[in-house]
């Protein structure tokens, strides 16, 4: 049973061309690179990216939360006269609020990125691909998954061969 067919390239430009070509016929296409190749996502037709939104929410929640906690504990829960200052000394609530805003945003950004990327995922079929370790070194890969309606082991392979890759290999499931 196949997971996908994988074409290997030595050069990001070749990769980009290949991806564009694949996209013309297939939908379930993906690409793998040792670093973030500019324009690759666009070439794959990736539009929306939720990371910034998640980060914003994280920041707001953190900031609002800590400010409320400060106000509640100092004014409502246990009002105590400290140095004759007003109970609701909002200016002094700002530093923690700022810090926790940042913290919330950072946590959101980090874990948001992981979850949206489906990580951690220690086992993945793509790792079955021969020479895939090069994907984290210097090689670039295009994969057409078997789940694609247009997918056909023979024709798709021929199509990939047509893209002048270093080689095409099958990725077992």
């Amino acid at each position: 049973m196949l997971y996908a067919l994988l074409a290997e390239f030595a050069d990001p430009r070749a990769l980009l061309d290949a991806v564009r070509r694949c996209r013309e016929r297939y939908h379930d296409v993906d690409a793998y690179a040792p670093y973030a190749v500019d324009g690759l996502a666009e070439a794959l037709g990736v539009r929306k990216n939720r990371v910034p939104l998640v980060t914003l929410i994280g920041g707001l929640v953190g900031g609002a939360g800590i400010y409320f906690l400060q106000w509640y504990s100092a004014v409502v829960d246990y009002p105590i006269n400290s140095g004759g200052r007003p109970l609701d000394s909002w200016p002094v609530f700002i530093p923690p609020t700022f810090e926790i805003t940042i913290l919330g945003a950072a946590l959101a950004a980090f874990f948001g990125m992981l979850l949206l990327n489906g990580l951690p995922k220690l086992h993945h079929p793509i790792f079955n691909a021969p020479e895939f370790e090069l994907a984290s070194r210097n090689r670039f890969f295009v994969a057409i998954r078997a789940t694609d309606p247009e997918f056909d082991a023979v024709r798709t392979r021929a199509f990939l061969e047509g893209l002048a890759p270093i080689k095409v290999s099958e990725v077992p499931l």
Partner: protein
Amino acid sequence: MATDAGTLVPPPGERYTGAIITDKIADLVLVRPMHAGYYVGFIVTAAFTLLFIVAITYLFTTGVGIWGVAQPVAWAFALTNFVWWVGIGHAGTFISAFLLLLRQHWRTSVNRFAEAMTIFAVAMAGLMPILHLGRPWFFYWLIPYPDVMNVWPQWRSPLVWDIFAIATYIIVSILFWYMGLIPDLASLRDHARTRGKQVAYGLAALGWRGEARQWHRFETAYLLMGGLATPLVISVHTVVSLDFSFGLVPGWHSTIFPPYFVDGALYSGFAMALVLAVPMRKVFRLEDFITRDHLAKMGTLMLVTGLIVAYSYMVEAFNAYYSTDLYEIAMMRNRYFGPYAPISWSVILCNVLIPQALWSKRLRRNPLALFVLGLVVLLGMWLERFMIIVASLERDFLPSAWHMFYPTFWDLATLAGSLGAFAFLFLMFLRFLPAISMSELRKDVRQETIRAGTHT
């Protein structure tokens, strides 16, 4: 600073490719052709780490009285170390986050180890305020949680702000650092030859596949983290400076502290970065990656921050006299002519006079000189914190309370120990993690080759 500066200098006859970079850096961790210097350093730092542990144990069993702190100087070494270590942390974040936003590509060679430096420095810093407590086992009372006493932290206290600032800082630094590591960990996983390493790095890599979408989200998140870390780093030392300017002790009660402290922090941070980089590139033969350009750039940054520090000193003195406040003036005289005058003048020497040598381009490109200057500035900055904290406390409002501070053996042991522990952690880092970001470097060399039009 030219954006494309800091280009790699490949060995004659070959050209750096992603492959070479990956192998060269990954092998440092996977194959480990360890240099004798490394083992020497390992043993020495381990010894000092042990001293640190002993000092802390004795402190906890006996009390802060083992230090020289007393009335009126109730804060001394611990707080000095704290401010100093936090400061050192700042350079790392500055390089990795601030320069990232400014698209300073030369940062890619140095950001990884600079971030490690930040984390370990902030860890040391974070310890100090806990150590200096009279009852350290109750430190968590500074953290808000619904306890059975129904009592909360006192939000007006800068020490509470510290907890938040430092905690946030160390967490964000670790996340930022770890995020940058994930693709490299994947590389290590893929290049590891033994099962054990595969599993270890495999777990750490969280199953990174280098998928296009993953890279896409990764880059956004990384950039956002940079954007968050930059204001954070400013805020952290601002809060630290408020520990002092919030008080009314003459010599503390000053509005220039935040910018003054932040800049001083970067100053000492770049110094530490140089002190670490110079031997590291030698021992691990990374001269091609961390080039003299890189060193020169950090040297320049050090010079700039140093000049701002010098300016702050002048402003401080000017303000004291301009205020015509009796106590401020007395404090300033006491600082430069009182019992601690030698310290204050050494500060001027180390932080203002000697670093002027950096005006010379030749010196800026001379690793050894930079290393030495780095040490000088580190010393100077520590003394500066000591001067601000101790010399101000020693003589405040009522002469009847004036009393000198003298350090004890355990004061020094704690400082030396923290240095040892810091260095120890750093060596561990070099041994188990890639000291330079491979993925970013791959991208850089690629783009350079493109620019050079020599790609195939």
